[in-house]
């Protein structure tokens, strides 16, 4: 993907932001996942591993169709089979689980390395594996638990929104392969319009709590979700009110500036003190020196 369209860059001072010329000029994109249309066929999951050349090791059966159990460095898109018991009946609620591509990404804010996490002008959040040092700050900061650190190469991995496909005008591979039309891709504006239409349709068809999952706490997401009951996103294993964690805000916005001031102030006081007060030298004992007590003793003896 082109490096000319980076609008946010991890570990970069606000005084020297990356190129902002394309902000607003390039249309924001979004992936729309309509959970009410998904039948859990896993085509998206397979297409993701095909396109990105990922092969998670074959695991063991855990009593669920969900496999592997969670996202991993070798699994960037996972079909989640949430089992819901409703009026004595079991029902699946499928979640197309992948990076949400937040407008205000916690991973990018927490990252320890300049430019290892970037946001493109179209809104996608991407990792630069070559720069990644594997500190894991992104993995603990993400409110959606998306980035995973590889035990093989100690680097963080997650869905790229197929940024390589997007760069040449293609849609993400998961969207391309969706069998039911549950996944759609387009400009954010178009996706929001379609989602609103779909939500209204669902409300008319007897799902009064249907709604769009586009959490404000992270500035909105590049993956939008239509849920049959948006008041209970937990039943889709999505957090109710995802935010950049307090620990990350405290650390980046408070500890860093205050700590820096503290260090510089300590150094400044030390330098000033040394210059103003001067050296603290001991007058060493001269040859023939005797402690005062002994001198007194000797004088007394002499008098006797």
């Amino acid at each position, binding site marked *: 993907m082109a490096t000319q369209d980076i609008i946010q860059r991890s570990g970069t001072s606000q005084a020297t932001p990356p190129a902002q010329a394309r902000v607003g000029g390039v249309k924001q994109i979004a992936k729309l996942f309509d959970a009410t249309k998904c039948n859990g066929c896993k085509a998206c999951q397979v297409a993701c591993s095909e396109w990105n050349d990922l092969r998670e090791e074959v695991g063991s059966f855990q009593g669920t169709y969900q496999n592997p159990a969670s996202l991993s460095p070798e699994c960037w898109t996972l079909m989640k089979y949430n089992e819901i018991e409703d009026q004595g009946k079991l029902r699946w609620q499928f979640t197309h689980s992948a990076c949400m591509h937040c407008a205000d990404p916690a991973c990018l804010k927490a990252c320890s390395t300049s430019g290892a996490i970037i946001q493109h002008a179209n809104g996608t959040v991407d990792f630069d594996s070559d720069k990644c040092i594997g500190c894991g700050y992104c993995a603990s900061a993400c409110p959606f638990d998306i980035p995973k650190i590889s035990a093989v190469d100690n680097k963080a991995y997650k869905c790229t929104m197929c940024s390589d496909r997007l760069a040449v005008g293609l849609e993400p591979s998961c969207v391309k392969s969706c069998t039911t039309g549950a996944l759609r891709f387009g400009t954010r504006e178009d996706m929001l319009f379609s989602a609103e239409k779909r939500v209204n349709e669902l409300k008319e068809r007897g799902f009064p709590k249907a709604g769009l999952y586009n959490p404000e706490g992270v500035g909105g997401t590049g993956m939008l979700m239509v849920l049959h009951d948006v008041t209970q996103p937990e039943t889709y294993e999505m957090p109710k009110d995802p935010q950049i964690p307090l*620990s990350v805000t405290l650390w980046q916005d408070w500890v860093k500036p205050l700590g820096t001031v*503290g260090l510089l102030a300590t150094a400044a006081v030390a330098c000033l003190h040394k210059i103003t007060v001067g050296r603290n030298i001991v007058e060493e004992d001269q040859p023939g020196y005797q402690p005062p007590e002994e001198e007194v003793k000797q004088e007394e003896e002499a008098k006797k």
Partner: protein
Amino acid sequence: MSKHNKQEMVVRHKLFDRICHWFIVAVGLVTFLTGFSFFYPSFQWLGAIAGTPQLAKFIHPIAGLMMCLPLMLMLVRYYHHNKWEKHDLAWMLAIKDVMFENEEKIPPIGHYNPGQKVLFRAFVLTSITLTVTGFIMWQPYFAPYFSATVVGWAIVLHAISALIMLMFVMVHFWMATWVEGSITGMLYGKVSKAWCRKHHPLMLDEHSDVEKH
């Protein structure tokens, strides 16, 4: 005439402690420089002492342990000199005179002054929190055993502890270079009796076990 014709020297730091101290300085330098490269991404070059950013990440926790464990050992060995004593309060209240070297107004003090005792406690606390939080956030070996929330708070605490430790290290360095004779004391172990009388007068009375050389 006196039989003394050269400075009388007193052992202040034993060989083992001196080796410990300078080992901690060496690995501590690597630890802090690499740590800075993650804390200040724009100054990633500070970690270049480790080679590459990836190596800095790999080396930092190992160097950190190599700094903290001997530090804890040293703190255990120096504990008996660092207990609070009655006369410490008077010294603390006269801190202004200490800093401006109004020598005649400084209350006498023992082997360590209360400022050094505060430093001792700061190193005890920060070396423990740095080790514990360091293990919790250590990717890819230990962090996966903790929840993201716990790791997130460990990262903040680690940064705060490191900042506090560094501020105390700076004060330690400042005092050591100001009070001349301290660094040779830590390098070669001995300080002169005149130095003791000036900076730690009660050290000579209190510690009859001080070896004479």
